């Protein structure tokens, strides 16, 4: 039987490239205007053609889904370390939402960037991202059906935006679909995909394999094989932008901003997963060493620094500062805070053992002296019959939550803050402060979890966010994996009498600053800032889309448009 002749990819790409044209009868509309200018010429360096692309992706799909079948037959759900399997709940949800954002920002760019070669690359990436969503949701489904503890997976997407720990991840990811589409594109392609997928999709699955989990590496390695294409899209976009001098100051502002936003969540999140949820201790590398390999060497030095040769004056400060924060304990301090607020998580925590202490001490000399007693304390209170919570007393001393990145303000520097319309916002870093000031109106919503629940009994908070099993009493989050210990219930929490104290409200009071709360009982979507609301003047496009039934008469002229503005 005859076979198809092999076509030249270059020639085919050149021919299909002729399908694009500049519209002259009607100008394309965009719902996502950009400050950036695009030159006429750009290149899709990957020469992506559907004919080559589709069979390749199908082959990769078959391998991934075959891997799930193999994992069922191998009874992997029972064999992998449960400590590891538990923390995959927030991890898989975070990456799956990110995949959705990666697809959607491609749609924004497709509507905004006037170049068909780039658009072709963006579109192929959007289809890739649907593939990643399918694979990662399938992985979540596999764990739900086969891992020992289905609680948390069962209500996954509801819990993901309910826990203060994962809401910060939602906040980070959303920066890639809300804002100037080019900023969003850089955040996704030039930062997340070029820098951080190496950590999340390569280094972290390696830890998974060490813990007996081979479905996670199978899934994420397959996703990572698409990332080369996405990194290439980011590079092509950047090279195109650099042809216009007017874009240079914009990139110099936006790229470090996007870098910081993603670092501020991913580094502490991935670092805690790698160092505090691995039962296996065969890995000789600390998170900092992985970071130096994958981020400092492979991204910063070989990519970002090289942009200087292309006319960009990129300050190294944001990159150096990120590393310095990891060196000075960002991950360790985040870890103990995350463990302390375990009732507000939807996975189970496994307290550290002597073996873990040794591993951490060997990589971070002095670790035990600084953090050891806290971990001993956590372990001492994992049994509900002790009648006490590790969290009690913890929030009274906790540092505030950052307005921008929604992570804890953990630096040793003086507490950063600014007062806006009579309320105080705290920041974890100068970059997060800058990210709020330089992009006014960006941060909205009832974003400070502890402000919202300030003064509440912790049991009522858990009830309110719904992190309770279907028996109506057992908590979804637990501070242990021990079958011999009872599981915590709402009654146990009630008995502890733990009152939630917002670190932000408390710190503002201690520092003599104006109101530290951004929760407004009368506004379910958070305290609206009048000065920033005034900043909003225009609607999108001239066609009156924002009017019609279901919309409040005063809603669209004043700013935010969301469900709260809809009359049912």
């Amino acid at each position: 039987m005859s076979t198809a002749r092999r076509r030249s990819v270059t020639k085919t790409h050149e021919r299909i490239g002729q399908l694009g044209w500049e519209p002259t009868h009607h100008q394309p509309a965009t719902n996502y205007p950009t400050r950036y200018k695009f030159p006429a010429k750009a290149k899709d360096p990957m020469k992506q053609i559907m004919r080559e692309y589709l069979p390749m992706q199908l082959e990769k799909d078959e391998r991934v889904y075959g891997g799930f079948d193999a994992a069922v037959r191998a009874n992997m759900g029972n064999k992998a370390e449960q400590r590891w399997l538990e923390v995959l709940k927030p991890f898989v949800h975070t990456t799956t939402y990110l995949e959705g954002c990666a697809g959607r920002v491609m749609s924004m760019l497709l509507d905004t960037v006037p170049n068909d070669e780039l658009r072709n690359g963006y579109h192929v990436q959007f289809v890739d991202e649907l593939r990643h969503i399918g694979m990662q949701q399938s992985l979540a489904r596999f764990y739900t059906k086969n891992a020992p503890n289905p609680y948390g997976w069962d209500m996954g997407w509801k819990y993901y935006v309910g826990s203060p720990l994962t809401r910060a991840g939602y906040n980070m990811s959303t920066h890639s679909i809300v804002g100037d589409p080019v900023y969003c594109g850089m955040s996704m392609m030039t930062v997340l995909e070029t820098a951080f997928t190496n950590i999340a999709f390569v280094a972290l699955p390696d830890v998974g394999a060490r813990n007996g989990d081979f479905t996670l590496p199978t899934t994420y390695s397959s996703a990572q094989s698409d990332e080369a294409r996405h990194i290439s899209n980011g590079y092509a976009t950047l090279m195109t932008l650099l042809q216009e001098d007017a874009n240079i100051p914009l990139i110099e502002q936006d790229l470090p901003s996007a870098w910081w936003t993603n670092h501020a969540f991913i580094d502490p999140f991935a670092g805690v997963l790698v160092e505090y949820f691995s039962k296996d201790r065969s890995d000789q590398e600390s998170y900092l060493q992985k970071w130096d390999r994958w981020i400092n060497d492979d991204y910063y030095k070989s990519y970002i620094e090289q942009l200087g040769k292309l006319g960009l004056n990129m300050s190294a400060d944001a990159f150096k500062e990120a590393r310095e924060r990891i060196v000075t304990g960002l991950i360790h301090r985040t870890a103990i805070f995350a463990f302390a607020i375990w009732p507000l998580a939807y996975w189970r925590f496994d307290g550290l053992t002597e073996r873990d202490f040794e591993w951490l001490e060997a990589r971070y000399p002095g670790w035990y002296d600084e953090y050891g007693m806290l971990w001993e304390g956590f372990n001492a209170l994992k049994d509900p019959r002790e009648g006490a919570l590790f969290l009690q007393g913890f929030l009274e001393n906790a540092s505030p939550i950052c307005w921008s990145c929604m992570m804890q303000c953990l630096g040793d520097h003086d507490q950063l803050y600014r007062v806006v319309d009579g309320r105080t916002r705290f920041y974890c870093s100068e970059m997060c402060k800058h990210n709020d000031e330089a992009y006014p109106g960006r941060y909205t919503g009832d974003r400070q979890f502890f402000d919202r629940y300030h003064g509440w009994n912790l049991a009522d908070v858990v009830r309110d966010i719904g992190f309770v099993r279907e028996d109506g009493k057992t908590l979804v989050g637990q501070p242990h994996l021990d079958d011999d210990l009872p599981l915590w219930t709402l009654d146990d929490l009630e008995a502890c009498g733990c009152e939630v104290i917002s670190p932000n409200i408390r710190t503002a009071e201690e520092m003599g600053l104006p109101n530290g709360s951004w929760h407004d009982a009368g506004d379910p979507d958070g305290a609206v800032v009048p000065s920033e609301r005034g900043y909003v003047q225009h609607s999108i496009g001239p066609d009156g889309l924002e009017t019609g039934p279901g919309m409040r008469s005063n809603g669209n002229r004043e700013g935010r448009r969301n469900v709260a503005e809809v009359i049912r």
Partner: protein
Amino acid sequence: MSTPTPPVKRFEQPSAGRAEDDARRGFLYFTPKKRRPSLYEELTIDTQISTERHLQGGWLVAFEDGRGSHSLGSTALRVADWFEWRDPAELWERPFYQQAAQAAREQDAAVAAARSEGLFARMTDGWRQFLQSSLQLPAFYEHGLWRALCGAARPALSDLVTHAIVLEAAMKQRQAQDLVVYAMDLEPDIGECSTEAARTRWLEEPAWQPVRALVERVASVHDWMERVIATNLCIEPLVGNLLRREMLLVPASANGDPVTPVIIGNAQREWLWVREWTPELVRFCVEDEDFGDHNRDVLTEWTQSWNAEAEAAVDAGVEVVKAVPAPRARPAREALEQVRRERDQLQSALQRKEVTA
């Protein structure tokens, strides 16, 4: 003698953990359409975060002009919950790649077989010349709709709708590229099939300008649902079917071309999917308890307006079909009447159902 009992595979413990937890081994954060959630539902729903669903406290990040992550005002249509809509074919990435890769393989196999048997030489002369000059023109039409659909995916108000739009766009892009690839494959056998010349005709020839204007117009619309409705309810049934089926698929067979029917056959199979989910989306909008009447008004206005624009383009399209070499299956006007009937049938989802006692 009795036959031995066949071996039975037994699982002592089908899954790890406690048996009483097995009721929780599913995704319980959404309400499935049927008694049990489908795989499509489990892999799709809620991967797009929404204040309409589980996100409390409003959007956490806003656009410069104050819009949240997704804006209900991004379309003139209103429904109680966009996440309630389902694609009746339940297409997600894996079956998409299976079907789309199969289409690619079928085209390659058809070209290889035709070449091997010398079938390209047996096509009529007129058809060969027509392929050289006109095969790739519909590719520009498909590419234009691809462009419009891509932009509709970001503002779409649920992951279920987004999936359908993105996959349709991917089909459009492949359909456009398939024609160019076929033209390249034909060149060793029938001579030059210039994409550049087709492009010039697409950009300059008067007969094609109404079609080009039509697809450019779709991308000029802000409302993402209007783009979907214009494409799938008004343009594709009329112009798409005329170009693909009446200009290429049917006459190709009559002119001895064995490959074009394979390519367009796959495109038309994908159209059947669109023809199924779009009326379902229309039905979903017009049957909304609170906003059904409003939606019917908006959709009626859109279809009237887009039908008129599509008719202007299809008048030019008829001239193109008339140029298809004989033996044609039937007169162009007859073909036009059929696609009009099919369009009207498709749009009947908009009509108010008679209430019977």
